[in-house]
C-alpha cells in the first residue's frame, strides 16, 4: 500500500518516517550508525530525517526537495511510504508523491500550529482523490504533551477539512523524534486512547472496489507485429474500472465504434476469459474496426462516458507561466492527448485559506474552477463517478503544468446530434459482411471527400472528374451534390437559412449510409461554416471525412485538410485531392 506523508515545511514529515523505519527495524544494517557517524563528524545534531533526505542538497539545506519512496513492512503488509516535501517551492514534487498514494498522513507541528501548507496540502489531497487521511499532531514534547493544545488544533483543522468535504480518519498526537506514540501507546500521552501511527497505517483500506464500476479501458495502442509473424490485431490498455469477458459487446468513445471481444491476449499466462480493473491486458475483436489510441473502450449496455468539447473542471496550476486565455495547451486524459483552451474561469481559489477571487489567469500554486474547451470532442467521466477517466493533466509546451479533475460535462453545440448518433450506433443492425473484408475486396476504405467553398466556385467539376477517374480505376465511388437531396429527401424541409442545419444533417446521414456500403463519397456543398463541418464530423465520425476547400478559406485553422486554388486547372486540382486520399491511407496496398 502506498502512503504519502504531507504537511507544512519543518513540521517533521521526514522525521516521522525515519523514526518509523528505525523503530520497525526496516533500515538496512548499519544505515542508522553511519548517518549518526556522519553527523558527529560534521558536528551537527543527528536527525531521523537524515535517513531519508538522500540528495546532497537536501542534507546541506536540511529540507526535503523531492518525494522519496521508502519501502517498509508491518506485521500486516508491505508499504511504500512517500515522503513529500513541505516547502511551497517544491509543491509539484509533493503533488507527484501524493498522486501515487492510496492514503495520507498529514503532519502538523503542535507548537507552530496550522500553517498555510497544512491547509494547501489538505486541499490538494482531497482533489487528488485521496479520501483516507489521518492527521498527526507532531512535536507534542514541545508543548508538554498537552491535551488542550492537541484539542485546539484538532478543532480548528477539523473545521477546515469540513469546508473541503474531507473526513479525517483520526487525529493522532505524537512526538516523532522521541518515538512517542509511533509504534505503540505512549505513557506521556496517556490521555489519548486512539491508535499509534503504525496502528493507524494498518487500518487504511485498499483502494475501493473498482471492478464494480462501469468498464473503462483507455486504448494505449493497437498492436500488430506482422513482421515477427504474428497476425493478431491486439487492442492494448489497462482496465481502469469494471470487468469484461470474451463475447461481451464493446463500444469505443468518442468514435462510437462497436465490436465484440473475441479473446484476451497475454504473454506467458494461462488463457483468460475475463479481465478486471487493475490489469494491463490486450484484446482481439471479432469485428475488425478502426480505432485509435485515446479512445475509451466501454461495455455496451453500461452507462457510457460523457462526450463533449466543453468540460467544467477543477485545475491546480504548477507551471512557471500562468494559465491564460487564447493560448493552446494540450489536454492529456486517459490516453487521449488533444489541444485545449481555457474558455472561462469560474473562480480562483487560494488553497491555503479557501479565499476566492476573480482573475484573468490561473497562477502558479493556485486552484481554479474553470471551463476548458477541446479542439475536438473528448470522452471522459466526472471524477466523482470514475476517477481514472475523470482526471487529467495540462501540458504547456513540453511540460506538465497543471492537473485536475472533471467536475461535470457541459453541453456544446453538437451535444444534441452526438446523443442521436450514440443512439443510432447503439441500435445499428450490422450485416454479416465484415467491413474490413469489404474494404479488402474494394481495395479502399470508405471515405467522405467533402468539397466546399463559396457559391460560384466550381467544386462539382472537380468532384465529378475525380469520381470518373476513381470509377475507371475500379473503385466503388459516388458523386453526391447537396442539390440532389433538396427536392427529394429534403422535400419536407423548408429552403431557408434556419433549415440549413437539417439539410446538412441529412447530407451527413446519407453519406454515412453510403460509407457503410463501402463507398468513396464525393460530396459538394457551398458556403459551409465551421459549425456545419463539426456537425458532419459528428454524424460520420471524424476519421471518415476529408475536407477540401476550394477558393478563399475562412475556416478555423486546422479544420480543412486541403485547400485548392479555384484558378488552377481542374485536372491539377483532381490530382491534388487524389494525393490527399493517398496520403490519408484511403487506398489499400494489394
Amino acid at each position, binding site marked *: 500500500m502506498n502512503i504519502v506523508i504531507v504537511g507544512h515545511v519543518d513540521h517533521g514529515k521526514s522525521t516521522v518516517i525515519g523514526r518509523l523505519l528505525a523503530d520497525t*527495524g*526496516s*533500515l*538496512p*544494517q548499519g*544505515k542508522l550508525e553511519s548517518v549518526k557517524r*556522519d553527523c558527529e563528524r560534521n558536528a551537527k545534531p543527528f536527525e531521523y530525517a537524515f535517513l531519508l533526505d*538522500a*540528495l*546532497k*542538497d537536501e542534507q546541506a539545506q536540511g529540507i526535503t*526537495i*523531492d*518525494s*522519496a*519512496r*521508502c*519501502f517498509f513492512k508491518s506485521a500486516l503488509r*508491505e508499504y*511504500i511510504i512517500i515522503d513529500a516535501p513541505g516547502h511551497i517551492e517544491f509543491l*509539484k*514534487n509533493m*503533488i*507527484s508523491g501524493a*498522486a501515487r498514494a492510496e492514503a495520507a498522513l498529514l503532519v502538523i507541528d503542535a507548537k507552530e500550529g496550522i500553517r498555510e501548507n497544512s491547509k494547501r496540502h489538505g486541499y490538494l489531497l482531497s482533489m*487528488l482523490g485521496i479520501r483516507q487521511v489521518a492527521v498527526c499532531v507532531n512535536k507534542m514534547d514541545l508543548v508538554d504533551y498537552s491535551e488542550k493544545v492537541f484539542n485546539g488544533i484538532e478543532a480548528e483543522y477539523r473545521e477546515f477539512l469540513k469546508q473541503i468535504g474531507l473526513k479525517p480518519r483520526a487525529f493522532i498526537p505524537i512526538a516523532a523524534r522521541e518515538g512517542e506514540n509511533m509504534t505503540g501507546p505512549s505513557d506521556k500521552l496517556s490521555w489519548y486512547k486512539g491508535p499509534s501511527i503504525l496502528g493507524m497505517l494498518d487500518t487504511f483500506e485498499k483502494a475501493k472496489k473498482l471492478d464494480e464500476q462501469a468498464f473503462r479501458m483507455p486504448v*494505449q*495502442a493497437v*498492436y500488430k*507485429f506482422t513482421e*515477427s509473424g*504474428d497476425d*493478431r490485431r*491486439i487492442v*492494448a*490498455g*489497462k482496465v481502469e474500472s469494471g470487468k469484461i469477458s470474451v463475447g461481451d459487446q464493446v463500444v469505443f468513445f468518442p468514435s462510437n465504434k462497436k465490436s465484440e471481444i473475441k479473446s484476451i*491476449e*497475454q*504473454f*506467458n499466462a494461462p488463457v483468460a476469459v475475463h479481465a478486471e480493473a*487493475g*490489469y*494491463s491486458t*490486450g484484446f482481439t475483436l471479432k469485428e475488425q474496426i478502426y480505432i485509435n*489510441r485515446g479512445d475509451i473502450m466501454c461495455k455496451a449496455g453500461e452507462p457510457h462516458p460523457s462526450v463533449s468539447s466543453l468540460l467544467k473542471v477543477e485545475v491546480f496550476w*504548477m507551471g512557471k507561466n500562468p494559465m491564460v486565455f487564447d493560448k493552446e495547451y*494540450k489536454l*492529456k486524459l486517459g*490516453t487521449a492527448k488533444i489541444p485545449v483552451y481555457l474558455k472561462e474561469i469560474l473562480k480562483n481559489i487560494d488553497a491555503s485559506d479557501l479565499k476566492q477571487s476573480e482573475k484573468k489567469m490561473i497562477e502558479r500554486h493556485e486552484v481554479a474552477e474553470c471551463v476548458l474547451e477541446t479542439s475536438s470532442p473528448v470522452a471522459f467521466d466526472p471524477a466523482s463517478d470514475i476517477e*481514472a477517466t475523470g*482526471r*487529467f*493533466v495540462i*501540458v504547456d*509546451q*513540453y*511540460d*506538465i503544468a497543471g*492537473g485536475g479533475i472533471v467536475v461535470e460535462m457541459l453541453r456544446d453545440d453538437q451535444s444534441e446530434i452526438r446523443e442521436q448518433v450514440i443512439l443510432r450506433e447503439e441500435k445499428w443492425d450490422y450485416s454479416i459482411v465484415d467491413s474490413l473484408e469489404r474494404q479488402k475486396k474494394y481495395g479502399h476504405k470508405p471515405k467522405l471527400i467533402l468539397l466546399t467553398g463559396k457559391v460560384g466556385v466550381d467544386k462539382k467539376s472537380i468532384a465529378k472528374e475525380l469520381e470518373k477517374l476513381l470509377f475507371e480505376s475500379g473503385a466503388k465511388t459516388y458523386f453526391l451534390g447537396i442539390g440532389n437531396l433538396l427536392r427529394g429527401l429534403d422535400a419536407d424541409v423548408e429552403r431557408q437559412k434556419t433549415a440549413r442545419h437539417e439539410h446538412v444533417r441529412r447530407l451527413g446521414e446519407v453519406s454515412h449510409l453510403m460509407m457503410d456500403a463501402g463507398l468513396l463519397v464525393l460530396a459538394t456543398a457551398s458556403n459551409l461554416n465551421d459549425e456545419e463541418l463539426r456537425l458532419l464530423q459528428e454524424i460520420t465520425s471524424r476519421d471518415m471525412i476529408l475536407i477540401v476547400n476550394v477558393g478563399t478559406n475562412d475556416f478555423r485553422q486546422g479544420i480543412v485538410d486541403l485547400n485548392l486554388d479555384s484558378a488552377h486547372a481542374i485536372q491539377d486540382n483532381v490530382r491534388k485531392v487524389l494525393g490527399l486520399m493517398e496520403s490519408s491511407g484511403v487506398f489499400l496496398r494489394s
Partner: protein
Amino acid sequence: MNHLDKLESQSVYIFREAYASFKSLAMLWSIGKDSTVLLWLARKAFLGHVPFPLVHIDTSYKMPEMIQYRDALALEWGLNMVYGQNAEALAQKQTFPDGAIDRVSCCKALKSEALRNTLSGKWPRYRMDHNLKKYVPDTNLEPYTGVIVGVRADEEGSRSKERYFSPRDKRNDWDVGDQPPELWNQFKTDFAPGTHIRIHPLLDWTELDIWEYIDREGIPITDLYFDRGEGKRYRSLGCYPCTFPVESKARNIKEIIQELKTGKFKNIAERAGRAQDKEDGGGLETLRRGGYM
C-alpha cells in the same frame, strides 16, 4: 490482484506509454537480474515481442559469463541487440585499477560517457546480425529520445527520488532539484529537441519483488547469482574490478528469496558490494546527475 500482479501491470502500462510516445526508443539491458526482468516485462507488454533495440554498454570489464548469456538470449529471443563502448578510454587505459584513475572516474568514462555517446549516435553502435550470428556496425545512428532503464527506488537514495519518466538535458544531465510533476498515470512525454527521457518501469519494485517475479515467471537468469560451490555468489552484477561477491550458499532462486526474507541479507542493502557508491559520500548521485543509470 496480488502485489506482483500490480507491479507487473504498472510496468506494462509504462512500457506501452513509452512505445506510444517515443519514435526512437531503446532499452538498456545490463544483463543483470533487474534489466532481465525488465526485458521480460517488455515481452509481457508487447505480447511476446520486443519492438525496440536493447542497448548494452560494454565496459569490457564485465564478467565473461555476462556477455555469453547476453548473446545467447539475444539469438534465442530474436532481440535487436546493440552495444556501444568507450573505445578511446579503453585504448588509452584510462581505467581502474590498471590506469592511474579512481573508480568514479572510470565509471564516468566507461559507462556515463559511453552511454551518452551511444545514445546520441555520436560513437559507433554494433548490432547483432541474426543471420551472421555476430555483431556488425549499426547503420542507424539516430539519437534515442526515449531510453528505458531498470533502476529501482529501493537501491539507493537518489534513485528513490526518480520519476517514471525522467528528462535528461542536452548534456545528458539530470536536474534532481527540478523534476517534472508526475500525476496518476500521466507522464512527461514531451521533450525539447536534443534532450531525451529516461523511462523507469521498475521504480516501485524491491530486490525481493524481482526475485519472487523471476521465480513465478520462470525467467532465465545468469548463474553468477548462485553459489556454484565456492560459498560465494554475486548479489548485484557489474564490472569485475568493482563488484564483489557476497558470502552465501544460496544455490537457486528459492534459496535467494529465503535469504532475503529471513536470512542474512534481510536488512543489508543490495549495492553493498558496489565500491563506486562509497566514494565522495554521494558517489552514485554524482554519477547519476552526469548521466549514469
